[in-house]
């Protein structure tokens, strides 16, 4: 009886030692994984910041203005260029615009020309 009990206990110790070891092993693996992911997240956050700063720097209004003045023929918008929706609605042709475009007509262009 005693021997059997002791044998059981020894077996239990061995099994639990094995389970414990393998648990610890996998835990370490997971911890390493977590640490790596955290590092990656930090790196990604860092690069998001750098990219955000870069985007902000590239889309600086003064830079855009300079580029626009050099490369585009655009002018500062004036109040008289604003048109209300209702005004626009009056000039839209009865036939659907897409159908007219299929026939090779520049509908929007015509409206703009007419308004000028």
């Amino acid at each position, binding site marked *: 009886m005693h021997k059997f009990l002791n044998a059981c206990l020894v077996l239990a110790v061995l099994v639990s030692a094995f389970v414990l070891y393998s648990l610890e092993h996998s835990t370490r693996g997971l911890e390493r994984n977590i640490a790596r992911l955290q590092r990656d997240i930090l790196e990604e956050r860092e690069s998001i*910041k750098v990219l955000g700063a870069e985007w902000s720097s590239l889309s600086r*209004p*003064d830079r855009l203005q300079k580029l626009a003045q050099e490369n585009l023929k655009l002018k500062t918008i004036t109040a008289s260029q604003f048109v209300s929706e209702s005004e626009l609605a009056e000039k839209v042709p009865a036939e659907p615009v897409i159908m007219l475009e299929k026939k090779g007509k520049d509908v929007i262009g015509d409206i703009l020309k007419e308004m000028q």
Partner: protein
Amino acid sequence: MTQAPDDRFGGPVKLAGQNRIRLVAIGFSIAFLAIALQLANLTILKGVSVEDDTLAEHQPRLPRPDIVDRNGVVIATDIAVASLYADPRKIIDVEEAVESLTATVPDLDAKALRAKLMQPGRAFVWLKRQVSPEERDAVYNLGIPGVGFVNERRRVYPMGRIAAHTVGYVDLDSKGIAGIEKYLDDRGAIYTASLGEDSGHTASPAQIATDTRVQHALADELASAVAKFKAIAAGGIVLDITTGEIIALVSLPDFNPNQEDKKFRKEQANMMTSGVFELGSVIKAITFAMAFDYGVTNLNGKYDARFPLVIGNASISDYHAQRRVLTVPEIFTNSSNIGTAKMALDVGIEGHQEFLRRVGLFDRLTTEVPESAKPLLPKRWSKLVTATAAFGHGFAVQPLQGISVIGGLLNNGVMTAPTFLKRDVAEADVLAKRIVKPETSEKMRYLFRLNVTEGTASKADVIGYRVGGKTGTAEKVVGGRYNPDKLLNSFIGAFPMDNPRYAIIVMLDEPKATPETYGFATAGWNAVPTAGKIIERIAPLLGVRPIFTEEDIAKLAKLAKSAKKDG
């Protein structure tokens, strides 16, 4: 573990020490149980999170929040950089280290470097803060013992000069020195802490009221005005008078916060908040509001401006002298000193002081930006002082305070303390303060609009946007006297006048007359057209819809015709 009873000898036999064994066994069981329970408690119930520890290694303190504009555009952010340091105790050959370091990092000074490394007692000296990634790699490859890197954070301002006065800047140790950056460290520490997220490792950005697009348009137009009129300085503010948010603030000359050494000249300071100026006739608007609010006159009132006003041995005369009896609206559009002084005298010295106190002109206006100046008012208040202060003489305020008060007069008589941080309507309503009656505000709106349609500010009439405004041409005090050749010109206006939302101030310091202005250097010829150009550019950005009356359409047609003739 107990001994089984043995029946062979006709009864239970007690082994010697059985009780003791039992006792020991119980003791062990208790001890193991305690350990098991604690183990279960720590691992299963509480579950220590690993996350906190690993992250804390990388970011030891709460990071500085980014600063973004009202649309979320990044204005200031932290990026990681490496800083080079040395441990002189560990350096074996100083000469060799100096030689190879100066060869790789060109801006290190050999002499200073040698002196730094020759201190065997020190364990830590900075060699260079914030080195570039290429330099870092190069120094790594040298492999000098005792030389290493610390990862630091560096504040960068991708927008450069835009909104530099509002945002301010930090020193090498990321401590705020000026502007909102200083606010985040000092008085706004609670606000800064509130931005930190629960984990404590990231912070949501601080959102300021500035709109970078409007800010740029304002700066750009002011810069071209400075060039055109050869002014020595210029400034401007766009204020949302319904919420008190400062949409844009420009003070020229400005600075680039990314500059390595932050030794800025005095002229580069933010004159819109840290300086006080006599705004001249712009102040008349306050006198008018006062007279209306006390009910001493109304829009049908008349004042005799035929002769200069004599008080004691001083005489007050008009710049645009009309030499006739003027109605109240005429006094406003002709900017008559005599008429305005008489209105203030009707209110009386006490009433005048009470009104100025009510609108806050006796107190320093403080905002988040630490640079602020107290208004400069006459010390002793006499009849003459009331008369001259009525049209802005001897009366210097921060331009921001000036526009804030006038914004309040136009915003239905409700003034909201200006702020550089984004604010919502509910917050603004709590802070709103009534300074004049709504009827007074209505009269002021009429006068401001009238002054643009047919008064001194006609060049700011951007057709469609219903601009209203008042001009001011103040002579600067040089050596204790007013100098008629050195002018400080200003324009304070608002749009759209039927329901004013945005107020704007434009200031030009010592603008010169040009052939285009027919030799005039008064505000109507430089500050006003500049303001007009600014409004034309920013109104679409601010979402103000143009409305055209019949008159406007006729005016536009006329303009188009004359443009065709010229072109």
